[in-house]
């Protein structure tokens, strides 16, 4: 029983549902209380202890239905058995956890445990078409070989083989070759070979199902790690969807860490308790006062993103990041530009992410980046919004097509804003080469950094928001 529960926790992890240790303990106690006999009850009991949000509950329900489905052997389609009718098709509803009732036969049976609990030879089982018994044996074998550790599709063959062996394949093979040798029983040899094929198919399907159950989470994790460190320009289109999820998670993490910072302020409501306590020594005369008000100090960020052709690959993700940050943090204004400044904050709040990013690139994108004009636009439109609490975030390669750089605006921004940060997808060694103006802008940035993967992006932004905190 315990083993079944542990397998189930593993399967939940496979569905991206993190189960805490004390939730596991609760679940075990809950199962003790309600028992295994009623499926709906079991589902409710496990659900209420293991899933902690409504979204989790949906994941949980899916995983539960997949995990506690009866891995029944299909009935032989050939004429091989007439006794196959003995097991009703409805077995999976009436008795979902039956195959798992079997206590794990640790060691005793060993590999090749065909002579295990039932004692019946595999060939007999196959021929009689006793699908329940076969499924049971398959489950036991699966536990013996540790199928729940399966990770990759490449392991499918290995586990299929292992499980078949644990079910007693060796004996079956011996029987087949024996039957072949006895020339008078060619029928039997044929039949046995047919059942052997069926066994293989069944076990392979079973392993595939389990791979989907247990293998997805680790593989996905691996893939996520890869995507996070990969250069943004190299990420392929089919991964965009996954990237959305990663970026959103990242933005949420950042926002959670930094959104609610509070500052004590010397004004507002009187902190009566503290004041009286302090002033008890003066006979209750309010000599020293304490105030309760705390000001939530949210970072105010103006993000300005280049979406021109040269950085389009990055722009997608930078916009995506801005979008996610916008969802999480209030007080982020987002702008995009190629040759003039466009406010995209409203697009972000009104449209879902895929459309918003595409729309911005479509509406603003193009060639002929003009940083000079953009800076002039900033000076004209944004300067009065920028004060010593504002952080300005530039995202772009600073390739200006040999236009006027207007560094004097950068200087103005540098003097007015709390911080000016420039994230450039090009490596530092390329800065200033060709039409790059980065070398001329960099002195007017508090931080100018190369940034071309998600990990770098997160690291930089985290540092940005933190130093922001330290300096207040």
């Amino acid at each position, binding site marked *: 029983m315990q083993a079944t529960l542990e397998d189930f926790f593993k399967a939940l992890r496979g569905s991206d549902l993190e189960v805490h240790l004390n939730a596991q303990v609760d679940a075990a106690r809950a199962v003790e209380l*309600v028992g295994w006999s009623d499926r709906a009850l079991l589902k409710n*009991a496990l659900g209420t202890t293991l899933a902690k949000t409504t979204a989790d509950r949906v994941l949980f329900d899916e995983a539960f239905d997949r995990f506690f489905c009866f891995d029944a052997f299909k009935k032989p389609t050939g004429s091989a058995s007439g006794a196959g009718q003995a097991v009703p098709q409805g077995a999976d509803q009436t008795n979902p956890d039956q195959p798992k009732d079997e206590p794990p036969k640790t060691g005793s049976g060993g590999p090749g445990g065909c002579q295990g609990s039932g004692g019946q030879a595999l060939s007999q089982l196959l021929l009689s078409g006793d699908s329940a018994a076969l499924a049971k044996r398959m489950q036991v074998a699966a536990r013996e070989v540790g199928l729940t550790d399966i990770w990759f599709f490449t392991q499918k063959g290995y586990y299929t083989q292992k499980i078949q062996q644990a079910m007693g394949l060796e004996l079956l093979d011996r029987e087949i070759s024996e039957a072949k040798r006895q020339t008078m029983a060619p029928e039997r040899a044929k039949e046995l070979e047919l059942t052997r094929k069926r066994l293989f198919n069944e076990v392979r399907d079973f392993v595939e199902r389990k791979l989907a159950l247990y293998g997805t989470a680790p593989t996905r994790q691996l893939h996520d790690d890869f995507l996070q460190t990969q250069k943004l320009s190299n990420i392929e289109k089919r991964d965009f969807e996954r990237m959305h999820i990663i970026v959103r998670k990242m933005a949420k993490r950042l926002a959670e860490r930094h959104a609610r910072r509070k500052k004590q302020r010397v004004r507002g409501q009187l902190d009566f308790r503290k004041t009286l306590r302090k002033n008890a020594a003066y006979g209750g005369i309010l000599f020293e006062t304490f105030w309760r008000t705390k000001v939530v100090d949210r970072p105010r960020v103006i993000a300005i993103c280049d979406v021109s052709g040269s950085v389009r690959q990055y722009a997608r993700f930078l916009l995506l990041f801005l979008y996610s940050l916008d969802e999480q943090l209030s007080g982020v204004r987002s702008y995009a530009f190629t040759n003039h400044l466009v406010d995209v904050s409203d697009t972000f709040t009104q449209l879902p992410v895929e459309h918003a990013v595409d729309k911005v690139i479509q509406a603003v994108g193009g060639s002929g980046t003009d940083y000079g004009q953009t800076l002039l636009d900033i000076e004209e439109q944004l300067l009065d919004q920028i004060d010593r609490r504002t952080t300005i975030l530039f995202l772009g390669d600073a390739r200006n097509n040999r236009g006027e750089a207007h560094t004097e605006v950068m200087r103005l921004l540098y003097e007015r804003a709390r911080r000016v940060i420039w994230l450039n997808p090009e490596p530092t060694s390329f800065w200033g080469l060709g039409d790059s103006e980065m070398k001329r802008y960099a002195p007017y940035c508090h931080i100018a950094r190369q940034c071309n993967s998600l990990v770098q992006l997160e690291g930089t932004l985290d540092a940005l928001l933190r130093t922001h905190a330290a300096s207040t």
Partner: protein
Amino acid sequence: MKTEHSDHFASIDRVAQSFAAVDYIASSAIATSVYLGFQLEKPILIEGPAGVGKTELAKGMAEVLDVPLIRMQCYEGLDESKALYEWKYGKQLLYTQLLKDKLGEMMQGAQGLAESMDRLHAHDDLFFSEHFLEPRPLYQALHQEKGCVLLIDEIDKSDPEFEALLLEVLSDFQVSVPELGTIKAKVKPIVFLTSNNTREMSDALKRRCLHLHITFPEPALERRILERRVPGLSGTLNRELVAFIQAVRQLDLKKLPSVSETIDWAKTLLLLNAEHLSLDLVRDTLNVFLKFEQDIATANEQMGNLLQQARKDAELSHASHA
């Protein structure tokens, strides 16, 4: 609490029966969660749309157990002095005045400063004792002699700081008052938290709770609820009404009608002596269960279809019931 009331909580069916006895019809999911919450002595975090009976569940629990319900409504800015305890400053000040007057008397005949100090030390420090403590809901809940049901309503409205304060109460059923030390619950209270999901709760809080999501009830369950809550309602009207509400919930509305709205509507129809749902009747009373102008307009547009479907569903359920 656990041993005393174990008869109500012997099994999940028994829980459902006990709640039915106090006019709360619990679905099996609700009954299971309540049962487990009681048996595992864990708080239950209840989520779901407004008006599906989250708060009612806690009230029902208090009634089943026959213990007081202590309710704490959360809001932004709620802090420990309003949730946990507060010192009675006025009394404390009076006490210092009193002390000042008595000081001379106490010190009479004392030789030198050292002896005076010794005498002072010999007196108990009454200043920070329970006599001067003003208990607030959380503190009260821990001090109930016979236990209680503690309802922390709309926890999502409170600040994260308050959530942190709750953690100790939820996991160990105790609070720490710096001046007094740790105060343990006399009898562990049954704790319910409700949330409308305006913000996500912290992991630490979620970990300490069982989670229960109450959704809109199934037709059969909703009919049973109406039978209980609006006793005079005829069977036909009950079926039609529930079928209609269920159909309305399929529409794309700003605010879907909840159980509480169903009950309100049923009471209204009962007052109007209605036997069947008719087009005019529904039109006139639509505002009882739809709260937005826009929603009412949407429902009005679809009225014919809705009514037809409701009648069909009602008949179906009647037939299957029979």
